[in-house]
């Protein structure tokens, strides 16, 4: 099993790390990333990211796909620990910058001291001063 850290999720998936590649079943791709492999490319809802025609780098004949290669192809960072048991899939600078430029506050959910999750969206309809702090 490999642990994939993506967005705010922590997903356990049957996968095989091979150096900078992360092979998993094509069917699991959607569960981990929300993207599905289709003839037109990698799709989430109506949006598709085209993959190079020569798809050998991303998919194998047995249906396995290299999630790390796909993720990097989309311009996002994919890093892993030395054992390949834990991967962190981040958001690329270009994607983040374009989201920020839209000026829509991205939603998130975080726990309070009692472990109850609160999302930014719950405060819709009110002005929100989102402010950070730390003990350090």
């Amino acid at each position: 099993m490999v642990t994939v850290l993506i967005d705010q999720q922590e997903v356990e998936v049957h996968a095989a790390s091979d150096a900078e590649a992360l092979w998993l079943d094509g069917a699991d791709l959607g569960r981990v990333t929300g993207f599905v492999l289709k003839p037109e490319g990698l799709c989430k809802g109506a949006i598709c990211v085209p993959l190079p025609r020569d798809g050998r780098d991303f998919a194998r004949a047995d249906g396995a796909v290299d999630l790390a290669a796909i993720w990097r192809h989309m311009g996002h960072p994919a890093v892993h620990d030395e054992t390949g048991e834990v991967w962190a899939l981040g958001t690329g600078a270009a994607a983040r910058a374009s989201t920020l430029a839209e000026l829509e506050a991205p939603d998130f959910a975080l726990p309070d001291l009692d472990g109850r999750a609160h999302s930014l969206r719950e405060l819709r309809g009110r002005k929100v001063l989102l402010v950070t702090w730390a003990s350090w």
Partner: protein
Amino acid sequence: MWQKVYEELNDPGLEVMAVAMDTPEAARPWIEAAKPTYTSLLDRDHHVAQLFNMVNVPEAVWIDEEGRVVRPAENAGSYDGFRKRDRATGVMPAEAAELTARAKRLYVEAVRDWAIHGYRSRHVLDAATARQQMRPLRDETALAHAHFRLGCHLQRIGKGEAAVRHLEEARRLHPESWSIWRQTAGRNKQGLAAGPDFWQRVDALGARRYYERVKLDGMP
């Protein structure tokens, strides 16, 4: 500080959502002592810093009723007065203390103006200005956040040695982030990442700010 702001301005329509860029263990005593009635959340992986491209605390984002950002991430009214402290006695010269107090006061006044006047507040930025005020985002910044996330997770599952490698990589890739640096630095007896290496790093800033100047009229 935010409790008073919240109590005064909740009625005109302001919510305060405070997010600790910290481990739950370190943040807990502070929250228990402050007993905030506003929303107070824990963000051990610094998700919010990544989502809004923040590099220090305190930083704030102003979000309107429709979820639009009307002021992007910026320093929430802190001033570099602490750098003028006598490092032996901890005493801050009167002028630095005055500027520190002024920065805080002006920032809270701006929040108040927005809470009461909404879009008519002169502190609400138009879209072009808001975009222009965003700090740049480099590929290394994005990569640093991924390494930081991985390092935090490895630390939690007891792989401390591997964790350190990724946390150090995050520091190296994103040197502008004080949050990443201080979260991963050693602490003194007071729990502060403010040892000699911290001061060395602060001194190396020279004329640059530790707390970026808030772009508000009259702000020191």
